[in-house]
């Protein structure tokens, strides 16, 4: 039973089912606005620049990056972890809230899942390019070869391959399957023959009979149920890329939960950024209400507190361990050393600024929400920088200490992935219903004001 008095109204304006369809599809049934073309132009340019930088890297080698013997993982791994983190929240958002039967997910899950797919695609690029000889990338899969040798199952890098492939497949499937009924709605409303044909192809011949819906619902629960632990597993595995090595600042048992929470943190922030843009540009304020944003804001305070506690715990354990390497990494290298700016940027952006969400006025102000959501993602990027670079640049042997600066190629590849993400999101906003219409219709009556909507149409 949904309690409107406690939870708030999820769909404003006592809408009929037909109205929900019309309002959500309205932006796609109009011509694309100017900002859409502008955005596509900018993001496509960034994407093309990224492709150029990737081609350069492949043809000339990793030497084009600022990596060296010590800092062998630079921006590529920072960005890989950053994107994977963002990619986590989509599914975390959608699936955890599905399993917990939180009805407010319905306005946001579609965009969150779309974001996941593009973010994971962007993330997956980095380890592949990082291999150097990407034409040999298939060596990582266990397959019978003339060398008779199998892969090393004890390596977290192999776990990464299995986990990220599975995650990309599962989240893309979950997203697509969720879209099929809505694509059928677009198909049936299409006015041009070509559009109808395309959406007919995409909607897999969908007709919502009861048997179909039953199977569909059970399948959604199964996919959600198995993907929820996968979300936890994937980022735990990513953290083990670091935690299983004996580097100061990495070799710690807090890493798996710390990474998972961090991932959900950055992903939720990205969902917030995206939903504010969707709400504003598509005028969908009736579906994404301030209550939705407030709910995300409250979750962000909670996660921010966990992040803050994790930072403190890391520093405390470094001090408590009494190990010189750990003490140096935390107290000299990170807190007061050359990378102090990055460390304090991380703490400020992730643990301090989100505390503003304690104020209801901030939680319900779109400008503040937008700014803080961006700040969190910047902070989460700095967190990954801290982990990767500060530990590697100054390890146990002072003779090998070295500075790391990214080159233009690395920066361009990163911009390219931002372009890929942007292009993906814009295409999504233009051609796919941005909200799960069938799910909104399902919760419409019990979560809106007017019980009897049948007379309106």
């Amino acid at each position, binding site marked *: 039973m949904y309690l409107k008095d406690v939870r708030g109204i999820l769909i404003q304006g006592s809408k*009929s089912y037909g109205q929900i369809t019309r309002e959500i599809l309205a932006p796609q049934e109009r011509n694309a606005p100017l900002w859409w073309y502008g955005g596509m132009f900018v993001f496509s340019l960034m994407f093309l620049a990224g492709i150029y930088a990737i081609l350069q890297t492949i043809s000339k080698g990793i030497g084009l990056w600022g990596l060296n013997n010590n800092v062998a993982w630079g921006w590529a791994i920072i960005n890989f972890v950053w994107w994977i983190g963002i990619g986590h929240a989509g599914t975390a958002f959608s699936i955890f809230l599905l399993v917990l039967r939180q009805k407010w997910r319905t306005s946001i899950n579609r965009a969150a899942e779309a974001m996941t797919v593009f973010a994971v695609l962007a993330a997956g690029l980095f380890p592949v390019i990082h291999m150097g000889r990407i034409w040999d990338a298939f060596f990582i899969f266990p397959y019978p070869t003339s060398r008779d040798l*199998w892969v090393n199952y004890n390596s977290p890098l192999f776990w990464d391959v299995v986990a990220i492939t599975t995650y990309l497949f599962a989240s893309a499937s979950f997203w697509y*399957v969720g879209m099929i009924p809505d694509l059928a709605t677009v198909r049936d409303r299409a006015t041009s023959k070509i559009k109808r044909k395309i959406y007919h192809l995409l909607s897999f*011949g969908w007709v*919502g009979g*009861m048997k179909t819906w*039953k199977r*569909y619902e059970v399948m959604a629960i199964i996919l959600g149920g198995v993907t929820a632990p996968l979300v936890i597993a994937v980022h735990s595995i990513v953290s083990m890329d670091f935690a299983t090595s004996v580097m100061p600042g990495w070799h710690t048992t807090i890493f798996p939960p710390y990474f998972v929470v961090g991932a959900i943190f950055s992903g939720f922030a990205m969902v917030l950024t995206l939903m504010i843009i969707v709400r504003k540009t598509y005028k969908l304020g009736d579906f994404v209400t301030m209550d939705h944003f407030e709910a995300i804001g409250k979750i962000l305070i909670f996660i921010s507190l966990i992040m803050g506690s994790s930072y403190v715990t890391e520093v405390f354990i470094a001090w408590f361990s009494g190990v010189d390497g750990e003490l140096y990494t935390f107290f000299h290298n990170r807190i007061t050393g050359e990378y102090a700016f990055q460390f304090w940027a991380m703490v400020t952006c992730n643990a301090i600024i989100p505390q503003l969400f304690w104020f209801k006025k901030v939680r319900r102000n779109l400008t503040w929400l937008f700014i803080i959501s961006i700040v969190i993602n910047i902070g989460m990027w700095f967190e990954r920088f801290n982990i990767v670079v500060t530990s590697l640049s100054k390890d146990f042997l002072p003779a090998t200490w070295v500075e790391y600066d990214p080159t233009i190629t690395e920066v361009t590849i990163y911009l390219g992935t931002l372009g890929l993400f942007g292009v993906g999101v814009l295409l999504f906003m233009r051609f796919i219903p941005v909200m799960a219409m*069938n799910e909104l219709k399902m919760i419409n009556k019990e979560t809106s004001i007017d019980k009897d909507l*049948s007379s309106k149409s």
Partner: protein
Amino acid sequence: MEYSKIIGVYDDEQKLYDSIDQIQEKGYKVADVISPFPLEELFEKLKVNTRINLAAFFYALIGGVIGISAFLYYTAVVDYPLNIGGKPSLSLTFVLIIFVGTIFVVVFGTLLTFFIREKKGPGAKIHFEYPGVTDDKFALLIDRTKDLSEENIIEINQIIKNSGAIKVDEQ
């Protein structure tokens, strides 16, 4: 022209439920209901069920747990045991791969089962089309079988009309 289906079109699910109750009370069979979103109440009324969850369980058990475990054991312990820092070949870390691999098998298998059972795929034939059933209308379908006499059909039409359908149609 021979019609094979009687269609009652509704714009409110409550009226549809009442109509189904009445039709079933009279002993007629509802073939299906086409709706723009799942109507959980009807799953019980129409006794709709699925074994897709059982299928998923077996994919997990056979494909995932047994299949992947056997593969890992064969490759890493039997076929070519690698000595990595003297650690045992049969390692606990297999659990991680089995866990994630099982999820992959379940997702893949469940999707495949769904699409095969539903005969759905890119460009698949739409087996029933009626304006609005993917938007804001609910279509109640009753098969016009040989068992139904003309009186029966008139009675069904009457029930559908009286229960608040916006239209009664045939296809």
